[in-house]
């Protein structure tokens, strides 16, 4: 049993680069953890699965595996990933095909199932304590605006530990909570028990720090970001975690980036709501108890993490169809750029109305003025004009055809609107459309989920 265990955060989202794997393997890690899912990602995967039922997993998985399988075969590393998305069985199939194409055999691939609640929402609605009410707004399930398209519970780390105990080299899951991908190997290696709240909390904290790859090592960093070394040479993080939960966060020496207490604390609070009670499937972690110490050379020690007992529920996420959106951009230059942009927004809306096209919601943004900051942006001082302004118009309609029709009302304005001629629309022109999905977070009693969670290990 290695002590400490070395975990590598090789992926922070669907679309991250598989080239991360090479640097982590060169540095030496025991587990390569690939975190592929976000709320938005599940929505993207749902659209894939709706088109083709053999999809619904993150399709860059084969490239990550191609980069790591030679080291897996050599027994140097194991891979844990939630790339299964809303179709882990299909992801496992893709993994087998990848191995076959590389001429690799003798691998044990584990699939964790049971997070998908889609087929039993009816009974769950009747039986679960929350009645599937919206966790954020309190709305009852009956208020869900359209039929659910996917429903996944955020399950925990113990099924991963079980898969590893059964000898898995690669563990593929669906909607296992991000940080639990990292906690699973720690439970397996260190023998942490289900009620060892402080150790589980330490593992969740480590997982939370690593799950967004470069964000713990100088990415998206608001400190002196311009001083980060070689920011193009992306840093993928490593954690060395001892059996008592004490950990060192670091990165491959050959990469860019920076790991210090400042970069680490910025990630500590990322998307956690209450840092004293960070809810995970396996423990309620108290991130305010953690102590951080700069060891120098891009190494930060984390210790003293405390945890509280896990709740009786898993968070689950449902999504529903919420219409179609389109958007376009038009640039205006000085003089009077914001006024021209605003007038063009009104002219577009008026033409759409005259054409009888029904728009449910508009969003007009004035880039270069207040597109991102909205009401937080103070008005310009008198006499100060921005040198240019881009109007971004977005709209929501009930169907795709209507959404496309909105964009077409913009094009004739090229010769008949405030000057000067629909500059900056780009070669895509107006109105590419996107399906919108609404999210519905809820809570599910663990007793209604756990019996359905299965771990299957297959040797190929």
């Amino acid at each position, binding site marked *: 049993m290695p002590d400490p265990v070395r975990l590598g955060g090789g992926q922070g989202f669907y679309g991250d680069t598989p080239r991360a794997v090479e640097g982590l393997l060169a540095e030496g890690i025991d587990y390569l953890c690939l975190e592929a899912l976000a*709320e*938005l990602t599940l*929505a993207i995967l749902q659209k894939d699965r709706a088109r083709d039922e053999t999809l619904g997993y993150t399709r860059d998985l084969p490239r990550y595996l191609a980069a790591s399988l030679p080291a897996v075969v050599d027994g140097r590393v194991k891979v844990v990933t939630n790339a299964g998305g809303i179709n882990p069985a299909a992801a496992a199939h893709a993994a087998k095909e990848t191995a076959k194409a590389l001429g690799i055999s003798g691998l044990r691939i584990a699939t964790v199932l049971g997070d998908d609640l889609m087929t039993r929402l009816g009974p769950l609605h009747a039986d679960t304590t929350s009645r599937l009410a919206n966790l*954020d707004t309190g709305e009852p399930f009956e208020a869900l605006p359209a039929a659910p398209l996917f429903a996944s519970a955020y399950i925990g780390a113990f099924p991963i530990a079980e898969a590893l105990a059964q000898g898995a080299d690669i563990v593929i899951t669906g909607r296992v909570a991000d940080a639990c991908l990292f906690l699973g190997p720690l439970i397996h290696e260190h023998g942490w028990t289900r009620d060892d709240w402080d150790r589980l909390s330490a593992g969740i904290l480590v997982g939370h720090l690593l799950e967004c790859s470069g964000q713990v090592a100088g990415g*998206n*960093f*608001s*400190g*002196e*970001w*311009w001083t980060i070394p070689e920011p193009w040479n992306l840093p993928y993080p490593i954690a060395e975690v001892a059996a008592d939960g004490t950990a060192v966060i670091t990165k491959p020496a050959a990469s860019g980036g920076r790991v210090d*207490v*400042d970069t680490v*604390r*910025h*990630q*500590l*609070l*990322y*998307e*956690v*709501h*209450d*840092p*004293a009670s960070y809810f995970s499937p396996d423990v309620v972690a108290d*991130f*305010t*108890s*953690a*102590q*951080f110490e700069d060891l120098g050379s891009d190494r930060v020690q984390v210790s003293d993490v405390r945890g509280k007992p896990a709740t009786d529920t898993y968070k689950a996420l449902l*999504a529903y169809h*919420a219409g179609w*959106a389109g*958007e376009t951009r038009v640039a205006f230059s000085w003089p009077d750029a914001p006024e021209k942009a605003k007038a063009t927004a009104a002219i577009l809306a008026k033409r759409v109305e005259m054409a009888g096209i029904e728009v449910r*919601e*508009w*969003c007009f*943004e004035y*880039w270069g003025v207040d*597109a*991102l*900051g*909205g*009401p*937080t*942006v*103070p008005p310009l001082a008198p006499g100060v004009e921005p040198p240019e302004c881009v109007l*971004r118009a*977005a*709209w*929501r309609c009930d169907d795709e055809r209507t959404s496309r029709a909105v964009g077409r009302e913009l094009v004739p304005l090229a010769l008949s609107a405030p000057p000067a001629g629909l500059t900056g629309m780009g070669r895509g022109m107006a109105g590419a459309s996107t399906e*919108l*999905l*609404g*999210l519905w*977070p809820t809570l599910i009693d663990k007793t209604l989920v756990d019996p359905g969670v299965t771990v299957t290990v297959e040797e190929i």
Partner: protein
Amino acid sequence: MARIALRELCGYRAGDKGDISDVAVFAYDDETYAVIVEQVTAERVRALFGSMVRGDVTRYEAPNVRALNFVLRGALGGGGPKSLRSDNLGKTLGGALVRLEIDVPDEIAARRRPRPDVTWADAILDALPQS
């Protein structure tokens, strides 16, 4: 005393969960942390964001890392995959929050963080074939 924007003294990071935006601000010393705990209230943050945030704002303290975390409900135009906003995940709301102004003793105001120096980017860009 001096009135200065939080951006002069604090770091920031924002993320999303559904239609909720989490925005954290980070002080660089104990004195500044004490000032932001006192002055950067949930009420002031709520007022700063105005019509951008439809629901409540809750503040959490993390003294171990000298940080405050603000949870802004109804802040993302319906949530990532439904929002029409270009910043549908609210990644820029950290920058928006540090516009907030605080009153600090002159010795704290003197700890203003430096402005970016990106001459290294000029060196890269200047070497490119550009029209």
